[in-house]
């Protein structure tokens, strides 16, 4: 038998817990540094002018001035915001209803529909974007906001529906059944019970899709061909040219482009916290 006294065992346990806590913090801090490094890189590079970048020393705001002079940053950010938010709205509308149908209601064909939704995510966008483009060109939807919104919604819907279905499946049935007994219809159940419950998933989808759509290049490039309706991500691509790389300006542009996504996440964190803590407490 062990000769450690009860007191020693207790303090060992406490120490082990404290020790493991320290380890946890160290690990988390290490990961933090790794995660924040890109921002440091972008910031530092953007504060040099091009000659200063080549020579490796000196700081100035030249690049930032030049960036705002070269591109209509404000206008393009507005375009990005408009298009991204509209697309997210459509995606949320489509995926919550779809997730409810496939995850909660689960009628006979829903397995097949789910499979099709899943499969449509798996075709690489590079392979099918040109037929998509040709189709929309025939409809005259090129160079309009709604063309881009339509394509982004379609591209994001499968992922969102997949997540919503997964999430809805894990929500318990008894609440619905209780409501049904009360005489509430399936439709009202969706709006009054399931939707509020799904807030964590909705926020997750919204944040992830925001970043994906905001950062997208290919669809924006093809479907919005003029600077007036261009998104910021595509606009930033006009800085480098065939024989000219302005690395500091590209870094400045990337920082500008990353900020909204960061902001969106930080703001929506509040809703995410609420949803998560409600799930964990009673």
């Amino acid at each position, binding site marked *: 038998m062990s000769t450690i006294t009860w007191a020693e065992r207790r303090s060992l346990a406490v120490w082990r817990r404290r020790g493991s806590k320290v380890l946890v913090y160290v690990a988390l801090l290490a990961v933090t540094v790794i995660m924040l490094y890109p921002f440091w890189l972008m910031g530092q590079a953007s504060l040099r002018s091009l000659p200063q970048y080549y020579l490796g020393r000196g700081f100035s705001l030249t690049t930032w001035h030049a960036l705002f002079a070269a591109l209509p940053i404000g206008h393009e950010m507005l375009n990005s915001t408009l298009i991204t938010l509209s697309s997210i709205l459509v995606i949320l509308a489509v995926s919550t209803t779809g997730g409810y149908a496939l995850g909660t209601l689960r009628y006979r064909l829903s397995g097949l529909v789910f499979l099709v939704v899943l499969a449509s995510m798996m075709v690489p966008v590079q392979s099918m974007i040109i037929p998509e483009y*040709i189709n929309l060109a025939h409809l005259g939807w090129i160079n309009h906001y709604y063309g881009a919104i339509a394509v982004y919604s379609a591209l994001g819907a499968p992922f969102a529906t997949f997540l919503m279905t997964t999430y809805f499946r894990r929500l318990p049935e008894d609440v619905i059944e209780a409501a049904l007994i009360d005489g509430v219809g399936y439709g009202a159940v969706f709006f009054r019970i399931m939707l509020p419950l799904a807030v964590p998933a909705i926020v997750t989808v919204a944040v992830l899709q925001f970043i994906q759509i905001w950062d997208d290049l290919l669809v924006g490039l093809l479907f919005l061909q003029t600077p007036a309706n261009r998104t910021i991500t595509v606009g930033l691509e006009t800085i480098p040219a065939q024989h000219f790389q302005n690395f500091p300006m590209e870094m400045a542009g990337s920082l500008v482009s990353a900020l909204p996504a960061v902001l969106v996440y930080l703001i929506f964190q509040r809703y995410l916290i609420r949803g998560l803590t409600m799930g964990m407490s009673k």
Partner: protein
Amino acid sequence: MRRIISGCAALAAIAVLSGSAFAAGGRSNGTVTLTLWHNYGTGGNAVATKNLVAAFEKQNRNIKINVVSQPGGNYFQLLQAAWIAHTAPDISVQWTGLFDTKYEKQLLNLKGYFTAAELNKIDGAKWASSNFNPAQGLLVIPLENQFYIGFYNKALFKKAGITSVPTDWSQLFATCSKLKAKGITPIVYGADPQAIGPNPYPYYDLSYIAAGLWSPSQLKGLYTGQTPWTTPALAQQISTWASMPKKGCTNSDVLTKTNILGAFMQGQAAMIIDGNWDTATLQKAMGSNVAPFLPPFTSNPQRGVVQYSGDGFAVSKQSSHQKEAVQFLKFLLTPTAQRIIAAAGLIPDVEGFKATNPLANQMLAFAKAGKVAYPMIDNVIQGDVVTTGTKQLDAALGGDISAAAALKSMKQTHDSLPADQRGNTYH
């Protein structure tokens, strides 16, 4: 949350209602509006384009040109997509060589719009023509003359006791050892300063290696396959070239070094192989301490200079204002235009006009001194082969594979091309 949703819905409604098409061209009170697409980013070419359009509009008050800057990467995919959807611009920037013969079906053939005398004034007109024959009609009017060239640091050469610029392999390796003895990196290789990708661009070097083996017209053999990529003479030259890092002629991290232009400008390396597009930057930073030289990647003294007009403007066949668009192209050949081009730091492509940068004029002097003008080799071989070559030649330079293996890959790619892409007519 609900407020946010309704706010978004309102924005979406505004988006849909106001997202109307933007005029691609039109005619109102006799004014013709043209659209011009370029992929010049924010550099000198963009400045030149802007000024050229302004000057042209002043001379032709009934024509207005909308200049649209398109992203540099994916530019040609965008153009292709626009042609498919019939939303293509009237005038677009095109690269010369096989890059424009590829799109020949979409480009207006300029035969008949320009006289033979006008065409003669253009340096390198044949590379911008159908089947590389000006008589078959020009497809692109070049904007500027360009070079693949080497630059060297005069002070570092002096420090290492080098009195003359190397002109062949043996002299190069001798130069390298002298520089190495003084702790100077002889040639710095790394990520191409012109591209966002990580690779060195092997076609600066390959152009000069080819110049040492063949005449400009003999380069067609590489296109048709009559001169296979694995031909022994070429294999030997590539082998020597790929041995440079091992012999200490370059830095050790040839495949991963970034900012090589900075390294050259800071005096860490004595030589760099590049194009003429960084001339202004180099001039400003190094003044008279930098000079161009012809990369001596040959067994016999280097006889060629890669002087080639790589890009310019073309008119789309789909344009409904072809006459006015061609007027802009004609304007490019006038003295006013050439002076604007020179003022923007570019090298004029029309005979009789000088560049403003002394370095550029030194480069032009090579041809005048009797060097033969060669095209950029990546413009005159098939795109698939260029793609394979970038990867394989880089891997050879990095020591991962042998020169023979790299060339074998390129030959494989070439042989698997459909017959009409390696026939007697340039497509």
